[in-house]
Structure formats: structure tokens, C-alpha cells
């Protein structure tokens, strides 16, 4: 009775433990629910700009709109003119370079190379009017473009190659009366089209996000929280938080997941603990470029081929250009698995005028390593290619690409590299030897921060904790359980185990065979004894 009772108690305990281990309840994440409630309520503007008398007029120039804005928001231009959206550069301390300013003004990339001498075209994405050259007056408040960010009518559009002026079709009165908090389409009008087309540069920022599903981006999805960019990229005094290290250098003023989700967003602590060295993005963005393709490679050395003396374009099966006479050849990709690197929030860039230190040229260097405690693993898009450089001065050069007419030495019109580089470098205030070549550009890193997937699609444990082809296979300098092992210990241990098995089975086999032969011997004796009386 006592015994049965014990067995019953014991087996109940075992059953309870097993149930506990094997059963997984989908717990209710209160933190997430609180956030959902917080962001479900959208602010209603306290002013309808359509009712303001200052805006009831026929604006002849966009500058008149700016003046009208400043008639009420009398100090706001100061905030805007202190921002990198206006200045196209930020001052930061960079290791090895000192205090330096970097931004679209001087950083080179391996897409359309750089802005110098091409401002007429590039300034389409400058929040100002009339930046047609490097002589733009950054102190003139009348040239601040309020509308590109604050237009809520979806009507505003900056003209192509108009130095930042709006397209001539835009009804400025309508736009001025519609203004409000920036929407995805405002930010996206520039940030989705970097590099000359939708999703060319970022891979995780593109026009599809304006109206996408939760699967594409769990935050911006129209059937999800439908958040605007500014929900996370908050902007006190027009100083918008967020850094992208294709142009940014320091670890300040960043927009982070933690600002809403805290450092312990998971119900399981083992996942929270990962957060010390693994960024949220690394697991929650299993792939980018989920809707439209992004450029992975750009070879300028192929540019300039003409058909019947005229430039032409070729398209791949998805309708993406894979060759353009004016730009060279491209490789596009969709649903791309990110690469992963260690990153501590500081970066250096190839700045126009820098000497080439190594080939392939590293366009931007994202600092960090496992041994640096501030570093985390982040997902990145890596864009490679080749581009033009000065063989004598050993540096990348800035060609003049855009021109209004032929004979203006612009490459996109004349297809003469020599003239284009000479013009571009003159505008940039740098010498050009007259001898150019093409040099490979490795690695321009684009941290991937958007296109966060719903939690069910997050990268699974075994995608990194695996010996073969894990996502983190290329990262070194640390021990990753499941991926790494001490090879000598494993080798010795394996053979010790096998030898033990062999020894044990050998020992057993000898015992059995000896037993058998002994039994035979004993049987013979018994037989002999039994046989004896019969004799």
C-alpha cells in the first residue's frame, strides 16, 4: 500500500514535470499590447491649415510658400537649417580622421558616385530650392522646402533635375493648405528612391512600404499598426532621430527598437539575453527587398556602350535594368538574406579626396568586433561594384554625370570619361591627372533596419546555431554554441568513446566465449560422471 502510494506520487511528479517541459503556452505579451494601444491612437491636428488666411492665395514661387509658413512658424527655419537634411553633412569625431564633416556633400558611394557637379539633378532630394551647384547659399531661409516633408495632399512633387524646385504641375496653394505631420510617402519620396530608382540603395526602404502588409513590415503594414516613419523617427525641433551609416559616422541620436520595445521585450529571458550582443534587427529581419528588387552590384566599367551611336538599356526578367549605357551593368536581387557584421555605431567613409588604401576600395567602414563590448551583430546589405579613379593620384574621382545639353562635358550626354572627370573634379576643387581607370569597390555596407517581419517569421535559433551554412558562418572571434566546437577535443573524445565501446564489447565477447568453452568442459565432465556407472 505504502509502496503503491509512493509510486503514484512519484509518477505524478514525473508527469507534471514532463507536462511542464513539453507544453508551451503562447503567453500574452503585455508590453506589446500596451504599445499597440499607445500607437493605435493617432493624433488629430489642432489646426487645419486650409482655414488659415495666410495660405489663401495664389503662390507664384515655392519661396512664397516658405515665407507664408515662416509668418506663423517664425523660428522654425532655424531648426530646419541646422539639420543634415538641409546641410547635407554632419560634424562628428571619426577615429583616425579627427573632427570631420561627412554627408552627401563629400561622401563617395558606389552607386551614382557623388553629388559634386551633379547638384542640379541630385538636389531633387535636398530640402531646399535652387541648389544647382556647390555655391548654394545655405543661409537663405526662403529656400527651405517645407512642403516636401509636410505635404499631406500627395500632390507635391520635386521636378527632375530642377535643383530641388517643385515640378511645374504642382498646385502650391493646395499643397500649402494641406500641410501636416510627415507621412510615409513624404519621407519615401527621397528615401525610397536613393540611387536613382525605387529601392536601389537601401533594399529595406521602398515605395511598397507606403501600403504594404504586415508580412512586409510589421510596423508599417496597412493591416497592422500602419505606423508612419515619424512614429519611430521622432523629431524634436526638426532634429530627426535615426542614423544610416552609409553617410553617418557617430553613435548618437539613433532611432532604436529599444526606445519602444525596451531591452527586455521577450517573454523568454534567453532571447532577451541575446540582446547584449545581437541587434533586434538581426533576428527580426530575416530578409529584405521583400517586394521589389534592390541593387546588389553596379559596374561602371561597362558604361558607355552605344547602339548606332545612341545609349540603350536592357532589362532582366523582373523588369529591372541590368544594363544602361549611361551607368553600366547591374545585378538586382529580391528577398535577400542579409549579411551580418559586428557594429558599434561608429563608421568611417570614403570621402572625396581620400587616397585609395586597399583594393577593392572599402566605401564605408562600419567599426566593431566581438571583442568590442559595445558591438552588436547587425544585418547589412553589401553593395559591390567598380568605379572610375585617378591612376596617378590614386583616388576615386567625381565625374560630372548630369548635364542639360550635349557638349557640357557631362558623361550622360557625351559619354567621354575624360571630360566628365575633369569637369567634376574642377567643380569639387580637386586635381585630376588625366589618367583614369576602373577600380573595384568592395563593400558599401547598408545596415538593414526596416521590413521587420511578424514575430513568427523571425530567424530561428538553428539558423545561426548550426555547423553548416549558418547565417553567422562568416563572423569570427567568438564561440557560438552549435556552430563552433573545439576540434581537437571532439576528435579525441570521439575516438576515446569509440575505443571504449570496442574495449567493452571485446571484453564481453572474450567473457562469453570463455564461458561457453568452460561450460562445454564442465558438461563433458558431467557426461563423463554420468557415463561412468553405465560402463
Amino acid at each position, binding site marked *: 500500500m505504502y509502496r503503491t502510494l509512493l509510486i503514484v506520487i*512519484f509518477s505524478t511528479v514525473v508527469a507534471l*514535470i514532463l507536462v*511542464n*517541459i513539453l507544453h508551451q503556452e503562447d503567453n500574452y505579451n503585455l508590453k506589446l499590447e500596451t504599445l499597440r494601444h499607445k500607437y493605435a491612437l493617432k493624433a488629430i491636428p489642432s489646426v487645419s491649415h486650409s482655414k488659415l488666411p495666410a495660405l489663401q492665395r495664389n503662390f507664384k514661387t515655392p519661396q512664397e510658400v516658405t515665407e507664408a509658413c515662416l509668418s506663423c512658424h517664425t523660428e522654425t527655419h532655424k531648426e530646419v537649417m541646422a539639420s543634415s537634411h538641409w546641410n547635407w553633412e554632419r560634424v562628428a569625431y571619426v577615429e583616425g580622421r579627427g573632427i570631420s564633416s561627412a554627408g552627401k556633400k563629400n561622401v563617395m558611394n558606389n552607386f551614382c558616385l557623388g553629388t559634386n557637379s551633379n547638384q542640379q539633378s541630385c538636389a531633387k532630394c535636398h530640402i531646399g530650392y535652387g541648389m544647382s551647384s556647390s555655391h548654394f547659399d545655405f543661409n537663405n531661409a526662403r529656400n527651405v522646402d517645407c512642403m516636401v516633408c509636410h505635404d499631406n495632399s500627395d500632390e507635391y512633387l520635386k521636378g527632375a533635375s530642377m535643383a530641388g524646385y517643385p515640378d511645374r504641375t504642382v498646385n502650391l496653394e493646395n499643397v500649402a493648405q494641406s500641410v501636416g505631420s510627415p507621412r510615409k510617402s513624404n519621407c519615401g519620396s527621397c528615401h525610397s528612391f536613393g540611387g536613382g530608382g525605387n529601392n536601389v540603395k537601401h533594399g529595406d526602404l521602398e515605395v511598397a512600404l507606403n501600403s504594404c502588409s504586415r508580412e512586409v513590415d510589421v510596423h508599417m503594414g496597412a493591416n497592422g499598426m500602419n505606423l508612419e516613419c515619424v512614429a519611430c523617427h521622432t523629431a524634436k525641433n526638426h532634429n530627426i532621430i535615426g542614423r544610416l551609416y552609409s553617410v553617418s559616422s557617430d553613435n548618437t541620436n539613433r532611432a532604436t527598437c529599444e526606445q519602444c520595445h*525596451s*531591452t*527586455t521585450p521577450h517573454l523568454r*529571458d*534567453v532571447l*532577451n*539575453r541575446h*540582446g*547584449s*550582443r545581437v541587434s533586434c534587427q538581426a533576428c527580426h529581419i530575416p530578409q529584405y527587398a521583400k517586394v521589389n528588387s534592390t541593387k546588389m552590384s553596379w559596374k561602371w566599367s561597362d558604361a558607355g556602350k552605344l547602339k548606332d551611336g545612341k545609349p540603350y538599356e536592357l532589362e532582366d526578367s523582373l523588369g529591372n535594368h541590368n544594363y544602361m549605357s549611361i551607368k553600366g551593368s547591374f545585378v538586382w536581387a529580391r528577398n535577400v538574406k542579409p549579411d551580418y557584421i559586428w557594429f558599434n555605431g561608429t563608421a568611417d567613409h570614403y570621402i572625396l579626396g581620400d587616397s585609395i588604401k586597399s583594393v577593392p576600395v572599402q566605401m564605408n567602414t562600419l567599426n566593431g568586433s566581438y571583442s568590442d*563590448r559595445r558591438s552588436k551583430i547587425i544585418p547589412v546589405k553589401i553593395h559591390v561594384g567598380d568605379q572610375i579613379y585617378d591612376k596617378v593620384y590614386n583616388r576615386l574621382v567625381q565625374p560630372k554625370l548630369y548635364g542639360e545639353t550635349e557638349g557640357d562635358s557631362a558623361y550622360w550626354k557625351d559619354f567621354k570619361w575624360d571630360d566628365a572627370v575633369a569637369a567634376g573634379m574642377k567643380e569639387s576643387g580637386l586635381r585630376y591627372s588625366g589618367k583614369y581607370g576602373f577600380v573595384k569597390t568592395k563593400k558599401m555596407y547598408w545596415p538593414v533596419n526596416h521590413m521587420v517581419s511578424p514575430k513568427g517569421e523571425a530567424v*530561428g*535559433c*538553428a539558423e545561426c*546555431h*548550426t*555547423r553548416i551554412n549558418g547565417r553567422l558562418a562568416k563572423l569570427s572571434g*567568438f*564561440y557560438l*554554441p*552549435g*556552430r*563552433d*566546437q*573545439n576540434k581537437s*577535443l*571532439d576528435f579525441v*573524445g570521439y575516438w*576515446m*568513446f569509440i575505443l*571504449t*565501446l570496442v574495449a*567493452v564489447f571485446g*571484453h*564481453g565477447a*572474450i*567473457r562469453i566465449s*570463455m*564461458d561457453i568453452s*568452460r561450460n562445454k568442459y564442465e558438461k563433458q565432465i558431467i557426461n563423463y560422471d554420468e557415463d561412468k556407472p553405465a560402463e
Partner: protein
Amino acid sequence: MQQNMHKVYIYKRFERFWHWVQASLIMFLALTGFEVHGTFKIFGFEKAAEFHRTASWMLIGLIIFAIFWHLTTGEWRHYIPTTKQLKEQVIYYISGIFKGEHHPTERTGLSKLNPLQRIVYLGFKLILVPITIISGILYLLYKTFDQNNIIIIEDYPLASIAFWHTLGAILLMIFLVVHVYMTTTGKTPTSNIKAMITGYEELEDDQEEVKVENDSKHN
């Protein structure tokens, strides 16, 4: 044959419970642990790691009970190493066992472990298990939260913690193989296992008297 034998109670109830739970936990930990190590795939890494963590806490709990039991009952005395008859015991396993000789030492309530067992089990308890458990705890708590919810990471490289933990695991597996095999070297191939299940072992009569005397003295 039966007439010459006598049943003796050797393994106490807690001892048997501890032995079998520890055995199953160690085997389960080996299964999940070597999966985390990447040796094979059964549960999937995520589940394996989770199970391993849970089972490891259970084993630690069990071992705390076992240590308490050893100390309070004086059972720890069984593990005091001795060189007396150690050589004979080794020689027995190398040659005598094949010739059908008897064990050079006999199991009694006073001394239920032979000299070889004493040394091996003592090593198991004082070296092998501590190596594995201490490295395991360091592994388990490699990253922890402090009061401010900030994650603290140990200064030791995880590679060396993992080295000791894997070494312990491999040695435990070798121990397991030899240990299981050794259970077959009793009176009959299953008599030792039966003893660990029921607690009773059949001993020859002449030893029995000594045993009873000793038992009454010590308990």
C-alpha cells in the same frame, strides 16, 4: 545453489531513486547537450537547448539532495579510497574474470563498493561531475541580468567554458558505457542491475554473517 545464497539489503530507497533519476537525467542531458553541441539533430536546437537547461536545474537539485543524504547518513564513507586489494581487483577484470574466478572482494553493507569502484566513483563525484556542473553553471549564467535589467557577460571566454563542459560530457559518456558494461560482471549478467532496482543482492552465506554484524554496529 540457492541454498548457499542469502538476500541482503544493500541499496537504500533514496539511493536507488537518486541513482536512476540521475542516470536518466544524465542520459537526457547528453542527448540534448550533444545536439546543442551540433553532433546530431533530434529535437531541433531551440528545444534541445531549452530541455537541456530545464534538465540541468533538475540534476543540480537532485545532486544537492544526494550530497545531503551522503553527509547525513554517513554513506560518504563508502567512497573513502583504499589501495587494499585494488591491484587484485584490476587483475581480476583483466584476467580472472575470463577464467571464471570469483570477485576478489565481496560486497557487504559496510563496504558495498570494491576498491576500484571507490576510486572511480570518487573521481566521478569529486572531479568529473563538478567539472561538468561548474562549467555548466558558468555556461548557463554566461549572460545574466543585473538589477537594472542590464545584461552582464562573464569575462571568461565561452570557448573555454564550453571546452570543459564538453570534456566533462565526453568523459561522462565513457563512464556511462563502462559503468553499464560493468553491471554485467555480477553473479549473473543482470544481478547487479536487479540489486539497484530492488535494493537486495544475493550474497553467499559465509559473508552474510560478517555483514549482519557490521550492519548492526553501524546503523
